[in-house]
């Protein structure tokens, strides 16, 4: 079985942009838009900046907190519906799966239940139901054709890469021909307070890998991509050109430190990266660029820097997109996959925003301007609470239409 192919059609909605091109340009420019969340999240402690999706990005205005995630996931899916229809027209026998990656789901429903209790209001039946049944993947599934399976996967902030690994397995095993992967999380009170409570939130906005980094910036956002079999990719190419260069998932690995609830270990990260590189049959020195998890917390960045030293010795150019996107949790790794795909396409690795005093010189983090990186596989790393480590290797593959 040839490795699954990541199609060029991707979508994203972030605090930095209403779509993927805008978001990518923002990352390249190190341009961020952090705001205070008070108008979105009621009854918060004194606020710290977040990366929120702009009000005008939501068609018809921002959705209620109880539906923010489902609306976001549905918007992303519907924006790819045209591409899916095209694929199904070209490949009438194709079957579609959906894998949604989310760190904590539609948690606005809990906020509404708690606030209604406090205010003496009734909670709408639909809100209660959303706490008892998985609505996000189902909401996306019913809007698309020929969906054979819809799953919602949670592996904390590593969810996006775990979802991609699962999607890759579904495609390569033959359980579907096309898999729509959506990573999404909405702002929530529990996440905002939770990150703050463990001292992981930045006061002025996150600065990954900076000497004076003081935490991450909680964010919301979503990103979507289509993974297909080599056969579907070739069929889609057939009418366009005789041969086409595809971005493929060369390797994927996930493990668990089984050590601490919120502290990562460099050994766990190292093992996950090495397993993904082994599967991809890529040597560390062949990696052209790395999208680190790079949350901007003291512990995360330190653990990744230690792992990088063990894995690479001399590190390839690396970056973190969270200085611009903030930490969009279940969406963060999917956003990095989209960015990695751009790096493979155009050779540019975006700078890490606000990085004027790097804490880990050996890590070779790009600062200031985008860097031109050599052609070669790109590594994406994601870490999640509970000691979950995940790594994915994306690479080029020149295929003939056969």
């Amino acid at each position, binding site marked *: 079985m040839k490795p699954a192919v990541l199609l060029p059609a991707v979508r994203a909605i972030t605090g930095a942009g209403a779509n993927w091109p805008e978001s990518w340009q923002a990352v390249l420019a190190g341009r961020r838009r952090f705001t205070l969340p008070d108008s979105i999240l009621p009854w918060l402690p004194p606020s710290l900046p977040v990366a929120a999706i702009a009000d005008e990005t939501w068609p018809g205005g921002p959705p209620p907190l109880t539906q923010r995630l489902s609306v976001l996931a549905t918007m992303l899916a519907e924006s790819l519906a045209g591409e899916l229809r095209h694929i199904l027209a070209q490949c009438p026998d194709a079957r579609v799966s959906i894998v949604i990656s989310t760190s904590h789901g539609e*948690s606005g429903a*809990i906020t509404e239940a708690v606030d209604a209790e406090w205010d003496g209001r009734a909670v709408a039946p639909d809100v209660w139901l959303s706490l008892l049944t998985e609505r996000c993947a189902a909401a996306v*599934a019913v809007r698309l054709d020929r*969906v054979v399976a819809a799953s919602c996967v949670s592996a904390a902030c590593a969810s996006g890469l775990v979802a991609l690994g699962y999607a890759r397995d579904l495609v390569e095993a033959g359980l579907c021909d096309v898999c729509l992967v959506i990573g999404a999380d909405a702002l929530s009170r529990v996440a905002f*307070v939770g990150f703050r409570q463990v001292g992981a939130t930045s006061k002025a906005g996150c600065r990954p890998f900076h000497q004076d980094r003081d935490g991450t910036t909680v964010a919301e956002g979503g990103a979507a991509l289509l993974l297909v079999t080599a056969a579907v990719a070739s069929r889609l190419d057939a009418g366009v050109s005789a041969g086409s260069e595809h971005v493929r998932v060369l390797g994927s690995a996930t493990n668990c430190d089984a050590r601490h*609830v*919120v502290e990562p270990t460099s050994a766990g990260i190292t093992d996950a990266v090495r397993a993904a590189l082994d599967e991809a049959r890529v040597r560390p020195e062949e990696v052209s660029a790395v999208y680190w998890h790079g949350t901007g917390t003291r512990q995360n960045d330190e653990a990744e820097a230690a792992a990088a030293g063990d894995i690479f010795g001399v590190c390839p150019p690396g970056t973190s997109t969270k200085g611009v996107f903030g930490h969009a949790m279940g969406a963060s790794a999917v956003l990095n996959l989209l960015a990695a795909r751009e790096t493979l396409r155009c050779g540019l690795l975006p700078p890490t925003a606000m990085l004027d005093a790097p804490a880990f010189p050996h890590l070779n983090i790009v600062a200031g301007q985008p860097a031109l990186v050599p052609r070669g596989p790109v590594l994406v790393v994601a870490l999640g609470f509970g000691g979950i480590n995940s790594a994915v290797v994306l690479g080029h593959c020149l295929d003939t239409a056969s």
Partner: protein
Amino acid sequence: MSGSGSGRVITLTRPIGIVAIGALFPPDTEPAVVRPGAPIERASGPLGDVSEWREGLRKRSQVPRARSGAFATVSAAVLGRSLLGVARTPDGCTAIGVAMASMSSTIGVAHRYESTGRHESWSVVDPFGFSNSLPSAIAAQMALTLGLRAFAVTFVGDLFAFFGALTFSALNLARAGQRCALVIGADEVTHVQRAALAGAGLDVASAAEREGASGLLLSSDSAAQAEWKLTVLGCGAADDPATCLPPDWRDVPVDWIASNGGLPPLRSATPAIVLARALAQGPARILVGVRDPLLGWWVCGCSRDE
């Protein structure tokens, strides 16, 4: 691979052994764990108050900071330990994955967290409340408790989620270096789930029966000597899955866990029980599935070594 109908069914090129099946439901304090082929019986009769049962399990579960987390973590960890005890994995191997299915288990944690913050102060909320409110916390805490270092992932949902977790595990075992995987569905019914059931107009009276955990230990290691193997996996959109099955499976009836009436919530712990029953009653091949008019169907097929 078969795919002539609306769905896809694959025959695993490397069949995965079902080493053990188990369940833990109140009022039992010890999990019932069997080798496939033996049924698992649930205790019958009224359950009453499960708080003592919970407290006893919590104390001996060894789940770190168990009070901060969902109780489903405790029941799943106690069950997981028993499942692993049935088949000693080769040479102390920790390359064991955990794939959970659970929907609402963490809403009690999130509710407590937000209620404390809103009613008292955000400065006194449980510092582990947020991490434990993530659905993945159940799988990650199990991995931490049992020292398992392969994947740890939670499929959010009920019956469909269990089949997702099963498929995730089987494909991982077939591809990667992991030797074993725990696939567990767990639910809990606290006052928050009860309020949600009542608020959504659903049956509250039988809610307590839905608390508990059940699951499987899968192995890709031939040394595990599992008599029954997970052989076939499939999913589809609509109509009859029989058209998608490999020809030699088409005469095997599907034991449907739920079908055509919408999926009842808090049923994550049901599929493994149904699977155990089917394996106990089945001749050499069985098919178990779940289907929904909107979401389609999943099936898994198991075969016994002749």
